[in-house]
């Protein structure tokens, strides 16, 4: 299995960036870029490779963020251990919804609705448990700078953590793509019934893909909470985040390991620049263009921008 040399070069280049004296805002954009690449890569494993399109991946970002934060605030558990609990809880929820859904053949748009509904259920549960979660006002994490609390005064440590996890996720996606398991998922993507007929355990393969994706996503939630130090149900469980994750991957290329990263490379700086230039409230213009871009990609580029690039390269 040839490891993509370009990925290694890119990662090493990214690792030496902090030597340059760049403003911390620049690192904020890079961290957001890596986080969205990471989340969308996680999404791609189940929704791109196996085409079980989840429109509720924010459920697991939210669970990750809330579980680790609540453990930190009420029991003083360090987020590093909190992350383990967060991932465990997310996996349990994923099994709870994924196993019956896959077992009883909840397919296509129905699966998308079920995941959307999951995010909505979790959002209303976390809002209604006001006494514990602070309701829709959310939770501020008290600032204590130390490695143990996963809080740093500079953006550089966050940057390295984001870079490392992104690298691991992309490597995982790459190795799945070149592995029997990946071939199972692609067979399921092309034709579920045919995949079943040639002896692939469709339910199990889809479930494993979902669990891999969810585990990675939950870590993204923990990271988000510790980086932002403020979490609220609407941002973390809300549909915009789920849509953004799905959009980023789709615009890149949901079928290839590098696709989501390409999507994030285009979308994250694009919306940041737009936000700075226009200063529009809540970046409404950037979401508007997101939507337009998504419509265009869905119609003309089934393999996303990555597909466009490789086609151009072949010619």
């Amino acid at each position, binding site marked *: 299995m040839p490891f993509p040399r370009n990925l290694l070069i890119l990662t090493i280049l990214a690792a030496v960036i902090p030597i340059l004296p760049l403003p911390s805002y620049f690192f904020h954009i890079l961290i957001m870029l890596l986080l969205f690449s990471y989340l969308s890569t996680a999404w791609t494993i189940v929704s791109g490779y196996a*085409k079980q*399109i989840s*429109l509720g991946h924010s459920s697991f970002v939210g669970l990750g963020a809330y579980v680790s934060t609540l453990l930190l605030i009420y029991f003083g558990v360090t987020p590093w251990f909190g992350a383990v609990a967060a991932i465990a809880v997310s996996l349990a929820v994923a099994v709870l*919804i994924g196993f*019956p*859904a896959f077992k*009883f*053949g*909840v397919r*296509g*748009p*129905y699966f*998308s*609705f*079920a995941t*959307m*509904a*999951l995010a*909505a*259920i979790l959002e*209303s*549960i976390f*809002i*209604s448990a006001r006494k514990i979660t602070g309701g829709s006002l959310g939770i501020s994490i008290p600032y204590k700078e130390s490695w143990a609390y996963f809080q740093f005064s500079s953006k550089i440590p966050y940057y390295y953590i984001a870079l490392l996890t992104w690298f691991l996720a992309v490597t995982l996606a790459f190795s799945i793509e070149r592995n029997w398991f990946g071939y199972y998922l692609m067979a399921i993507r092309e034709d579920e019934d045919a995949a079943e007929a040639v002896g692939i355990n469709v339910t199990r393969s889809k479930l494993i893909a979902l669990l891999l994706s969810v585990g990675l996503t939950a870590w993204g939630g923990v990271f988000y909470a510790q980086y932002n130090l403020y979490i609220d149900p609407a941002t973390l469980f809300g*549909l915009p985040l789920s*849509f953004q994750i*799905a*959009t980023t991957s*789709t615009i890149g290329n949901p079928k290839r390991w590098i696709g989501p990263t390409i999507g994030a490379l285009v979308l994250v700086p694009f919306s940041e620049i737009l936000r700075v230039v226009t200063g*529009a*409230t*809540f970046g*409404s*213009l950037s*979401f*508007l263009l*997101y*939507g*337009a*871009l*998504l*419509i265009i*990609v*869905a*119609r003309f580029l*089934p393999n996303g921008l990555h597909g466009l690039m490789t086609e151009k390269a072949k010619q």
Partner: protein
Amino acid sequence: MQSELILQVVVNGFLTAGVYMLVAVGLNMIYGVMRVFNYAQGELVMLGMYGAYWISTLFNVNPYLTLPAIVPLLFMVGVGIQRFMVAPLVKRRLPPESHVLTMIGLIFVLQYSAMLVWTSDYRNVVVPIATTSISIPPCQFPIGRLIVFLSSVSIAVLMFFFFKCAKMGKIIRATCQDREAAVYMGINIDRVEAFTFGLGAALAGVAAGLLLPLYYVNPFAGFPFTIISFIIVTLGGLGNFIGAIMGSLIIGMVESVVGTFISPEIASAVAFTIFVLVLILKPSGLFEE
């Protein structure tokens, strides 16, 4: 006292069901004919509400009187969406996920253009008559909600006869049953689909005009309606007309009963849970024909 409260809760359940029925029936019809989920149905309601808001504040008229303008306008919007966004996907034989993504894109575009044009402020129109109640002891009937309920029942009846008797209704049903056979019978599928989408959007327009006196409108006010409508049509079985009405009643009752006795957030969690259970255990819906 307790029995009076329960009676009132049941009445509220019916009235809430009326609101949802208006939106769900349009969505259901579009799916029934075209096998396309109109994820943006709620956004059409939102656009219609802004339209009604504009007209009624600009000319100082009652929002109910804006309906003759809003409904044809939304019909046109629906035809436009079908012509320029949905039909090309069908022509290019793109897979279902392209439809989903196109619709998500459309939601983004509609919500955030509304935000650019009207900002994210909550807006409403005060209509005194809509908020007063008729009292038929032991129950209270808020007039605005009563109007919504009666209109959705009459629309349901009208639609039923439209599909049963009118020529266009029969054509739509024929297309629904077998597209290819419909083509051989000389039916212009493109026009039927555009008309159906327009009709579904027009129903969203009716909902918008009737709901404006009761709800605040902001760019994100529409999406919850889409979600509720999906739950309803899934409960009733996709494309099933009677099922959609029954689904609205179930969800309306759940919201009213759980919302009154426990809390509104738990009510929506219960509704979603029912939805997920039905999806998993009986994906064809509770009211399969």
